[in-house]
């Protein structure tokens, strides 16, 4: 019953907004390679950032224990304000020297439109980076390998099959 209502709601919403924003999302495969830092596993959030620098949407959360979410200060403010549901894009945190691959669903209309991808990171009892890596959401920007400041060594993104 609940599921039915949800689906019905989505359908209605879908028909209402179909004309204005017919969104086609593209899947990107994103790889994070961490430096071999010492300490706890890092919590990393990948967000879609509007041209004006504010948060649009959370694309991936690396770290599944909610008690540490407040260490990612800026994102946490956005998260507590919007109550965005992130369960579907949440996975394990990532330790020093590890590598993680995540699928990012990005709306095609956001490409080459001034949007950015932000990699926000924090390690328990250590440092916090509001924006450890920032990748412009342009065709050229996505093709390039990006380097991090401390915990993240590199980020690579390719379009998924």
């Amino acid at each position, binding site marked *: 019953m609940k599921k039915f209502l949800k689906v019905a709601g989505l359908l209605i919403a879908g028909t209402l907004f179909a004309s204005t924003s017919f969104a086609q999302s593209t899947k990107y*495969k994103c790889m994070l390679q961490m430096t071999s830092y010492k300490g706890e596993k890092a919590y990393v959030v990948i967000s879609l950032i509007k041209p004006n620098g504010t948060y649009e949407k959370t694309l991936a959360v690396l770290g599944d224990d*909610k008690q540490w979410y407040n260490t990612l200060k800026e994102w946490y403010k956005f998260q507590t304000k919007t109550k965005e549901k992130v369960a579907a894009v949440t996975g394990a945190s990532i330790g020093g020297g590890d590598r993680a691959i995540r*699928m990012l669903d990005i709306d095609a209309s956001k490409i080459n439109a001034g949007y950015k991808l932000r990699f926000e990171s924090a390690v*328990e009892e250590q440092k916090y980076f509001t924006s450890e890596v920032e990748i412009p959401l342009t065709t050229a920007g996505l093709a390039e390998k990006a380097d991090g400041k401390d915990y993240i060594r590199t980020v690579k993104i390719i379009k998924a099959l």
Partner: protein
Amino acid sequence: MTLSIWRYAHLALAIISSFFLFILAATGVILSVDAVTEKYPNYQVENFDTINLAQALPALRKVYPEIIELRVDHNKFVRIDAQDIDGNSVKGYIDPLTGKLLGPEIIKSPFIQWTTALHRSLFLKETGRVMMGVASFILCLISISGVVLIAKRQQGIRNFFVKINRDFFAQYFHVVAGRLLLIPTLLLAVTGTYLVLMHVDVFDLESKELVIANDATEESIAIAEFKIFQETKLSDVEKIEFPFMEDDPEEFFRLTLKTRDLTVHQLTGAIVAEERLAKAVMLEKLTLDLHTGRSNILLAIILGFASLNILFFIYSGFVITWKRSRTKIRNKHKAQHAEVILLVGSENGSTLFFANCVHKQLLAHGISSYITQMNQFSAFPKAQKMLVFTSTFGLGTAPSNADKFHDLLAKHPANQPIEYAVVGFGSKSYADYCSFAFQVNSLFAAQSWATEFIPVHTVNDKSVDEFTQWIHQWSEKSLIPLSTAAASYQAKLPPLHTFKVLEKTATSADNTTFKIVLESTSKKKFQSGDLLAIYPANDFKERLYSIGANDGKIQLMVKLYTDGLGSSFLYKLQPNDCIKARILVNKDFHMPQAAAQVAMIANGTGIAPFLGMIASNKSQTAIRLFAGFRYNNSLIKEYGAFAASARQQGKLESLELAFSREENPQYVMDLIAANERYFIDLLSNQGVIMVCGSLLMLRDVEKALNRLTEQHLGRPLSYYSERQQLLTDCY
């Protein structure tokens, strides 16, 4: 002494950590239930242990063109994170040979996440972790000190698993459960401590070491041909990360195996790098397995029970402590001045409780009594009587507060003769039943200054009845009236009730006995023979009166002594006055239900309960009353009138009186002698003799009856009293 150090350490550690241990154990129980239930549904495939990577990976790649990673968890479930042919992302458990989705990814419920966080860190992050680590470490110490305590109790490790003495539920199960779940509890504590230490990086260890780095170029081959994939079983794998980009020689397969990490060239299958996990990391994994029981359902269940048991330990441990410290000793007299010395050897305080009941009564009777532990034995220059109350610890040795008694007794010989009596407390389920009490008795017997007052008496499993038997004996011989009502020796005293005075007679020149009738305002039930305990000075001083029940009212017969605390208190009462008192049920002195014949023997005010019993003798049991008084005064006329009407109603067969201060002085013993045949027939026909009055009279009555039974029935009186044919309540 050493025992108490261990015991205090055990207790102090438990008090300090109980709050944390409570949380750890309570959450631990929940987590162990979760560890067990997460194994259902079962996503493990058949022959899982035989599948190698060369079989699984090519098959999976066919179903999932884009695989991010593959994980094999501790339940041997294979979990994939991939995209299927239609581009949908798939996260869940699969069959590694067919790629068939068996079930969705299990995400721990918020409740379990919450419980885990509480268990690990009290929601206090690093600080909480350290606190829980300390609590865990303390649990190690508690377990160890507990082992020492059991070993001491059992007289050595050899007897560790020998039967345990059962004092009371909490104590017994604390020890039994301690033995049984010692290993799992210690396991939880040690692994828990280790995990916290590892977590806060105390050891600062390198987690991996590079073994080979190899960049040999070889031919490209299919992954099914990779030698390393053919050799590696899925059951050795924890995680496989797939290459980020296919066909890119810079991208590799990364295999996290149980003991090493491999980087495998995605085209040639060559091992590019191998890193071996440091021993410490493997140990940490093993520790986590042991701590959580996540890899073994049986272990998870055992650990769950161990956690549950820690909760029980906390509860039973505090019950034991409370019981042990409950009995407060209060000495009013100095040891040098005391005439009666009570020596106590008690492990758990239950023996002390009995001793203290006696001590309080002695004090209430104005006897200078002094109570102390057996290890405090010293010179008692004024002592005339010594009473020893002792349990036996472990396998037949002294309890911890009596282990030096042997030496102390030899060190402090008395200069005056002392009469001693020993009561042993123990359990017959033990081979060494009360053996320390017997040892003490023979120690005393060997002293020239000591004489045995009455023989050693033993009390099994804290039986109040067996204890009151001793009270009977000692009271009768010493003529010091102690309560023989079981209720006086029970931990829970019956509650105080309010009683209203209905009627009180006056004394006269030739009669010092008065009658007082009370009514319970709370409709408390009682029978004739029960005792009414009153507190004339509103303090510990207790006075007991035998109740004669009359029409639901309490009738007491009291002899007024000018300096008598209880009697003058009662005499001052006026009708409608109210007093606080409690009813002590005295089951051993109730009117027997089964007997066809009952002989009642009383002197003085001892007649009170019998008057009530006769009045309520509706079943018309054949009762004969024998009573002795000093003078034949107005009160006796009343008794006579009462007896006459009782006889008319068939409630009484006869009343025979003896007067000691009239012409032809007679005593109740003379009445017995005159009715020899009657008493002999009565005893041989299962009749019952009840005696109430002074202890002196009781002594003489027993002598007289004993002579009768030995002469005519060939048995001592004790034979009949053991068969409940002689009931007494004397003071």
